[in-house]
């Protein structure tokens, strides 16, 4: 009895020390990962001196100041008043939200249909089979967007899509579509075809089998693809800078434009960035489990 007691004591001591090491490393890694967010957030409360001297800890290194937030009209003293910068910010924010959500939704709908086809039916497009077609979709990511800059500028000019939200939604849909197709194809591949066949025998048509049986099962993957698309579109800068000017400009472009001729407005840039990453943080915290679930193959069985 005493011996087993000693042994379990030894095991638990080893267990605890290994836990301490593991958690220590994880905490260190979390600090490294979260530091840029912390730095951006605190910088929005700094003045020029604090920024250049690298002060980090509020109330110890520097005294927090609302200057950054005041510059976009979101500090406590300016929030009630009319503010042009705030209107500008809210407009950009709205543009970003609408462009990302619509593009992601469109990409998930189109991409799911394409992926389902690639997963279930055998296509022949010239010499290309399903595998080649899938690779063709994915290969669109290899092309650097810069190559497309001129053609798209000309195309959008002709179609009168320049500086419109619709134009932005269309190009964002196009850029995230390959990733959505890839994720959703993997998702559909994990679902046994017998499920559709059972549904067909049970009285479904091909479409209702897809909508009533397959889609609900593939939902975690769709949510993951949707979130990933939103994040990618939200962060997109190049096409936004290229194809929009005044009315459809998005947040990343506005953040970048804070580097004016009189130097960089660190505080307002930091305040803008904080506001810009906030939705992503919310997504990350609340929907993270869907992303993990959706991206883990074989989770649906």
């Amino acid at each position, binding site marked *: 009895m005493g011996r087993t007691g000693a042994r379990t004591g030894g095991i638990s001591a080893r267990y605890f020390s290994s836990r301490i090491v593991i958690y220590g490393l994880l905490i260190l890694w979390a600090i490294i990962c979260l530091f840029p967010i912390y730095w951006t957030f605190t910088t929005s409360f700094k003045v020029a001196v604090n920024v250049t001297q690298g002060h980090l800890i509020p109330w110890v290194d520097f005294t927090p100041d609302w200057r950054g937030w005041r510059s976009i009209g979101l500090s406590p003293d300016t929030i009630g008043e009319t503010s042009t910068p705030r209107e500008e910010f809210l407009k950009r924010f709205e543009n970003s939200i609408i462009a990302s959500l619509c593009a992601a939704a469109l990409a998930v709908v189109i991409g799911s249909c394409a992926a389902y086809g690639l997963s279930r039916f055998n296509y022949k497009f010239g010499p290309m089979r399903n595998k080649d077609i899938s690779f063709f979709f994915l290969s669109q990511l290899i092309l650097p967007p810069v190559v497309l800059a001129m053609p798209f500028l000309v195309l959008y000019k002709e179609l009168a899509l320049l500086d419109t939200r619709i134009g932005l939604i269309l190009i964002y849909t196009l850029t995230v579509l390959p990733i959505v197709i890839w994720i959703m194809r993997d998702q559909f591949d994990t679902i046994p075809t*017998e499920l559709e066949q059972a549904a067909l025998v049970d009285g479904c048509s091909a479409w209702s089998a897809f909508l009533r049986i397959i889609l609900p099962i593939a939902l975690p993957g769709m949510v993951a693809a949707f979130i990933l698309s939103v994040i990618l579109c939200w962060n997109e800068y190049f096409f936004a800078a290229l194809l929009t000017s005044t009315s459809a400009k998005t947040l990343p472009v506005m953040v970048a434009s804070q580097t004016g001729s009189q130097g960089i407005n660190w505080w307002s840039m930091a305040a803008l960035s904080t506001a810009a990453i906030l939705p992503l943080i919310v997504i990350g915290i609340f929907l993270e489990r869907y992303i993990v679930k959706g991206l883990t193959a074989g989770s649906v069985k």
Partner: protein
Amino acid sequence: MASVDLVDVRKAYGDHEVIHGVSISISDGQFVALVGPSGCGKSTLLRMIAGLEPITAGEIRIDSKVVNDLEPKDRDIAMVFQNYALYPHKNVADNMGFALQMRRVPKPQIAERVKRAAEILGLVPYLGRYPRQLSGGQRQRVAMGRAIVRDPKVFLFDEPLSNLDAKLRVQMRAEIKELHQRLKTTTVYVTHDQVEAMTMADKIVVLHDGVVEQIGSPLELYDRPANLFVAGFIGSPAMNMIQGIIRPGATPTFEAEDGTQLPLSGAPSNSDGRKAIYGFRPEHLTLGGPVKTEIAVIEPTGSETQVVARLAGQKIVGVFRERISARPGEMLAVAPNLSSVHLFDATSGQRLQ
């Protein structure tokens, strides 16, 4: 309930034909097993009946109505899949009621029919559970429940028991048979396990390389196999087969390749010197007789004794009710039961008598 008729049904993928003209007629309420080694086309045939696989040529009739171009949903069939194919996002009751829901049956009636099916299958306590919370046998029952709530014309089973362990398989085998006796729905059951086919079916269709080798009741197939393939496929341990030549005469005999003489009850006409295969089942050997064999292995199981012995340079298996005390290497005198000897042509493999 309905009859099912397959008339010269063919299936080809491009130029490659896999089902070479299969004709089967299944009468109302019959339990038919499609059996054969893997790759013989039995699952393809079943899926063609279900409408999940288009047919290249021929005709499939359910209840005397040609269903070649009918969608699966319009054929009024229910199918049980090998991996059960339960909808993972629906609970047991919804899984079983889905087909009725698709046919716009009123909700109270669905609930009533699901409950009745669940009672038959002993699933009442599990109606609220999801498939992932069930054991293999329970999932199997849900899959069957999904089929029986429909009260379809035909049940199609695609190797439904092969994912279960041996003990559960025997139990479910009896349950399916009992269910069939109770519901009397026409059933087509695909299996690669000849024991399953023998024990469950009213009629067995033996398939090999996309061709029907023989159709008959289990005992017909066992007692009078039409050819070497059926003779070797049906029965366990398998039938013993010895190559040689038929010697008719006053006392017809069969001469094995090494000269060993084996008794025959009679020889088919014009068979003098004909190359043939002499077949007899392990249990159709009796102790004591004209044929000398050398014992290789003795396996007593208690109820019977299985003997592996050498005869005419070939290994044969004998199963005896008696207990045998001989040792490996010793000679054992046996006699094949003359009325149970099968003769097959050596080149065509067809039955001679």
